[in-house]
């Protein structure tokens, strides 16, 4: 069989295909409504829902809930009749599968292991994702766009969230499911997996680029300076920029919020930055210390 068809029809991967279809559908629907509301608003009309009246819960809401429930149950029943849940060989601690993949919703994190050490990819970044998500309502002080779809009134928050959600979370999952084979090497879905394949990929650390041994004291200092400059510069530069452009907004935000937002943002952006460093410049570590490597 065509390896592409084979890989997307594997029972557990069907869920991923369904996820891609559903997420794409709702993404389009959300943005379509957002742009429509923006158009209405700029033409001076009420946005969708603004003029709505109250209606009885019984029956309009109860009816639609019943219909959706029936549809969902029908869908799951058909899915369960058509596709059987797989059961692999009995657990065998001496036989490591290659690749050993985490459940699909954690594959984004497993993918991060290519670019970060486990303490960052598996512990620190996931914790920051959760903390960051919970923090969203408290750091986004834009009062507009509450209770309707809109894009123009919340451009930045929507762009940042969408980048995190669609690219850093969902795209990495899809890559992990469909494009990672033995040795966590890249395979296109139509390529045959090859257990023997070894890719020799020379990697170096950042300070090697300027000819300094990364495990030496000068290398350590260079790494510390680069990481420090990224964190501190990332804090100060947007502050200066906004101070000129929009000082009232900074005022409203306050210091605590500003620091939280920028910290979360530069942490998030460190993911694509390290990906590029690794994939384009073959840089493995930016900073090597006796205790941990970044």
């Amino acid at each position, binding site marked *: 069989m065509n390896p592409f068809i084979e890989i997307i029809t594997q029972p557990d991967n069907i869920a991923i295909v369904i996820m891609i279809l559903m997420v794409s559908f709702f993404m389009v629907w959300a943005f379509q409504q957002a742009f429509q509301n923006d158009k209405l608003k700029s033409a001076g009309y009420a946005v969708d829902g603004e003029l709505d009246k109250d209606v*009885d819960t019984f029956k309009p809401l109860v009816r639609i809930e019943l219909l959706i429930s029936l549809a969902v149950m029908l869908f799951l029943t058909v899915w369960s009749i058509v596709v059987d849940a797989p059961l692999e060989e009995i657990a065998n601690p001496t*036989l490591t599968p290659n690749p050993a993949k985490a459940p699909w919703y954690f594959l984004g994190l497993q993918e991060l292991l290519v670019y970060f050490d486990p303490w960052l990819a598996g512990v620190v970044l996931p914790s920051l994702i959760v903390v960051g998500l919970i923090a969203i309502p408290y750091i986004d002080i834009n009062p507009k766009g509450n209770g309707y779809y809109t894009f123009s009134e919340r451009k930045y928050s929507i762009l940042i969230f969408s980048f995190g959600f669609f690219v850093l979370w969902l795209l990495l999952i899809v890559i992990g499911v469909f494009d990672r084979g033995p040795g966590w090497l890249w395979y296109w879905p139509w390529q045959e997996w090859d257990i023997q394949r070894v890719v020799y990929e020379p990697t170096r650390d950042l300070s090697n680029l300027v000819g300094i041994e990364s495990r030496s004291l000068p290398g350590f200092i260079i790494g510390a300076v680069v990481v420090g400059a990224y964190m501190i510069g990332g804090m100060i530069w947007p502050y200066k920029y906004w101070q000129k452009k929009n000082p009232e907004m900074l005022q409203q935000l306050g210091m605590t919020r500003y620091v939280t937002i920028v910290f979360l943002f530069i942490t998030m952006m460190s993911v694509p930055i390290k990906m590029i460093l690794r994939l384009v410049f073959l840089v493995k570590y930016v900073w090597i210390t006796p*205790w941990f490597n970044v």
Partner: protein
Amino acid sequence: MNDLFNKVKKNLIWKSVFRRDYRDNVRDRALAIFGNVFLHLHPVKVRESAVKLRYTWGMGGITFLAFIILTITGVVLMFYYHPTVDQAYSDMKDLEFQVPYGVITRNLHRWGAHFMVIVVMIHMFRVFMTGSYKAPRQFNWGIGVILLVLTFLLSFTGYLLPWDQLGFWAITVGTNMGAATPLLGYQGPFSEYLHITPYNDVRFALLGGAIVGGNALLRSYIWHCIAIPLIATILMVVHFWRVRKDGGISRPQNN
């Protein structure tokens, strides 16, 4: 036909169950909601936009439905399953070959779990896109994030239970991350200062041992079937309560 209908409705048992007739008037439409313990989750009246599919996509409700389906099929599966290294895998085989409707029950549970993870993410996306986390719903968004994490953990702890290669290695890979926790995992930065070893670190606590074995299976089982569902149920109760107390489904402020 109508006669039969009326006879049934006059029947003592019918009356004892439904307590009163339903006439299509304001009072009875309201009573239909708050006279029923389940429907009572709803307010008697809702904003039109809360009924329109295009606004909420029904995603929170669908997530809840998935949770209920998983609870029911999960209880059925529990009747046939022993969380021990000796029996777990053969119980799965029994489900496949011996137990009536075992296959479809297991399928429903497996695909329902995938489905719940998908729809809870879409629910979060909807809530974000409609800005529904903004005041006064900040706290409920936080509850939601915890529910999202619990949904992942429910699915993750269930992975090990069949005791097959897939689950075993997925849990091995996953819990190895715990070993990398700064300070508290034996491979994590700075842990040597706290005298952390493979036998007293986070991973050990998760697995009930240094390897994925019988204790890990039992721990997964208890987290999966009892502890996490209990916590998630409580948080869902709070979540739904807050949806109402925060003024129902969000909508544009008309002023």
